[in-house]
């Protein structure tokens, strides 16, 4: 299909607008490419230099941000959608797509991932340490009331209970934090609206549950050696990670998008009853290791601090951001800290949403290789 019009007015308008746009872009292009530096290792003959120039140009193109922002505005306003990866719920609650979508091989991947956790537990036990799995529920399960009409894949409906039962059946100690997080909602928000993660309050609720489990079930001798105190900062405006999927930029004032107030919490030692903590390198002497994901690694949520406070003992945080639950555990098991002096207790924080998802094969392979090598 193509439009045909003999109207000279339209001809004039088209030509003038097209010409102006192209010329304006051309003038800017001179400026944009001015700072380009030739990469000597790239081949001119094989088109690598041209490709590099084009990448540089696209990255610095004047309309790039404007384009991203405008299309984010269109998608958000008209379709209530962001980029692939975010689910926009009601009252500006945002969720990660991982918590509602289906996975083609969910059952098989879940089995593989649970087997890996079981293998880690056996390995840690074999080194004389205890392992406690702190299973983080899905935000979409805790705050399902704001999901709106979005359909949640059946795999997620009983996922948490299924994982807890299966791991406990295999003899792994698991802390079920769902009820605590749901009950705590009456007091304060436990997950951030615009972020995948919990609030410092939610993190503290989970830390309390873990401490309770350790005190009640394990009667761990390491507990209550120190007294920690926490102090809240002033609330600050917080842009959650899920807003990266709605890059409104200059248009963010135009629409009512999700925003959070984050109260950061800092935890410090108040008094100590143990000699170990008087060590010059107090942290290195801690007998509890925390391994996990961004829920533990990101200081914004203060999960490690809350754990110290409610356990009443120090710990070393080996959690890493953006690598899922298995890579940090692989790195930790492979580290001199673990191989030379296994701690008394390893707390492994695992967001349940990772478990039905396919993990990179090399991640599981590296983990299993370490477990095999050390057994």
């Amino acid at each position: 299909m193509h439009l045909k019009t003999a109207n000279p007015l339209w001809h004039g308008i088209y030509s003038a607008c097209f010409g102006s746009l192209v010329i304006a872009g051309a003038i800017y292009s001179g400026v944009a490419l001015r700072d380009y530096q030739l990469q000597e290792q790239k081949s001119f003959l094989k088109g690598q230099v041209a490709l590099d120039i084009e990448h540089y140009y696209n990255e610095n193109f004047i309309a790039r941000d404007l384009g991203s922002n405008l299309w984010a505005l269109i998608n958000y306003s008209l379709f209530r959608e962001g980029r692939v990866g975010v689910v926009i719920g009601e009252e500006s609650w945002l969720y990660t797509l991982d918590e509602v979508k289906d996975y083609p091989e969910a059952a098989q991947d879940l089995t593989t991932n649970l087997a890996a956790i079981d293998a880690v537990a056996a390995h840690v036990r074999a080194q004389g340490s205890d392992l406690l799995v702190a299973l983080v529920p899905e935000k979409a399960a805790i705050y399902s009331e704001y999901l709106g009409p979005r359909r949640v894949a059946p795999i997620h409906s009983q996922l948490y209970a299924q994982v807890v039962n299966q791991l406990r059946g295999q003899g792994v100690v698991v802390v079920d934090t769902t009820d605590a997080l749901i009950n705590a909602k009456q007091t304060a928000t436990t997950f951030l609206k615009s972020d995948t993660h919990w609030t410092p309050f939610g993190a503290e609720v989970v830390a309390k549950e873990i401490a309770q489990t350790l005190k009640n079930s394990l009667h761990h001798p390491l507990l209550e050696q120190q007294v920690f105190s926490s102090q809240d900062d002033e609330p600050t405006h917080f842009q959650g990670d899920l807003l990266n999927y709605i890059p409104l930029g200059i248009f963010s004032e135009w629409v009512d998008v999700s925003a959070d107030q984050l109260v950061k919490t800092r935890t410090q030692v108040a008094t100590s009853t143990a000699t170990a903590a008087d060590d010059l390198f107090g942290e290195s002497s801690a007998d509890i290791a925390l391994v996990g994901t961004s829920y533990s690694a990101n200081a914004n949520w203060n999960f490690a601090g809350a754990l110290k406070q409610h356990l009443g003992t120090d710990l070393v945080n080996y959690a890493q951001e953006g690598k899922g639950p298995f890579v940090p555990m692989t790195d930790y098991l492979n580290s001199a800290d673990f191989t030379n002096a296994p701690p008394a207790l390893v707390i492994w924080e695992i967001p349940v949403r990772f478990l039905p998802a396919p993990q990179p094969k090399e991640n599981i392979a590296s983990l299993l290789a370490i477990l095999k090598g050390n057994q």
Partner: protein
Amino acid sequence: MVFSSSIFLFVFLPIFFAVYFLTPNKWRSLIIVIASYIFYGWWRIDFLALFFGITAINYWLGLRIEQAETRERAKRWLLLGLAIDLGTLGYFKYANFGVDSMNALLVSAGFEPLELGKILLPIGVSFYVFESISYLMDVYRKEIPATRRFLDFCAFVALFPHLIAGPILRFKDLSDQFANRTHTWDKTAEGCSRFMQGFIKKVFIADTIAPLVDQAYGMENMTTGDAWVAAIAYAIQLYFDFSGYSDMAIGLGLMMGFRFMENFNRPYASQSITEFWQRWHISLSSWLKNYLYIPLGGNRGSSVNTYRNLFLTMLLGGLWHGANWTFIVWGAWHGTWLAIERALGLKTDSGFKPLRWIFTMLLVVIGWVVFRAESMADALRIYEAMFSFSNWQLSQVYADSITRQQLLMLVIACGVLVFEVCRAHSGFVWQWKRKYFSAMGALLLLPLFMLSVLKLAAELYSPFLYFQF
């Protein structure tokens, strides 16, 4: 370089037109050649030597054919040219495929496989080789004199608007325009408008629908619903992608004063596969008819020979698209239906028949499945899902991946195509409202073009489907 890229639109194009219009008429072919070689070399400079070599040899062979003292000698020069052109195409496009297929047979028979390094396919080779062949054959048939103007011939083969993905032009259609073409305000404006329409088709529509197709074709388990949505979405994506490219090529040609042949004429309004090939990729079907079907004997022999020629033409046409069994099967599919329609004596000018139209579209969509599939195994997997009629609901995995924006664009694209069907069959509804629709389209053109430019800027990369051929 692709038309739907910021660097083409805002760097290459303004510099080219500034230089082109500031250059006196007699030197403009030189400017076209230089610019087109830069355009081509942007992909890889080393392959320019092959490109220039093919151009120079065909120019020289054209002169030899014309100057041959006898038809027999002219034919020998022609055959030499065909051997060089087809040999080039065969080596770069089909050698790996041939060796792989041969190895499959050798290995199954217990022999050692042959070894051949990976041969890189030069971009656009299928198009410039076909254009060179058409030139030699037209000179041999004395339909045109061999050109003495080497620069014009270079400019014809290299002309960047049609260099990478067509339309497949014939020298005889453009030779006069190289010597004498007009640059009018109307032509330039029409070119701008046409370019913008093509850009919108490509970036705004085809690129938005593309994830719907990619997601489904990447899935191992599809429901019947998934498979049909993906098949229909691909038919729509391919049309808007390729016709968008052709619109841009024609628009750029108009801005430079050339008028290229149309490459699409509402193909999805066809009521038979024969009609489809009169409306889809017209420059290719014309080429296949003139330089393959007719030399094979066309419809001059017995009915059986005609059916054979139709089948072979489409089979080779399929193979032209790529070195894969999927394209051969796709060509055979179309060739078979062309032969059946010929045998049934199907007429295409007998008014709109909805059932016949639906049946034709069904055949086309079924054909596109194997055309899009990476392998025959993939194609069979999708056909199995399509025709198992087991579950018409979308699978949750597929449904989760579809956004409302994609869905709306699919509906809009379907609406545009239905509108085209209505327009193609005169006397049908909408006829009296044409001017209103034209005015609406004209009003929307600029805002949609701006939105498309911003979409491209946000998404950075927008390759054309037909570049792989």
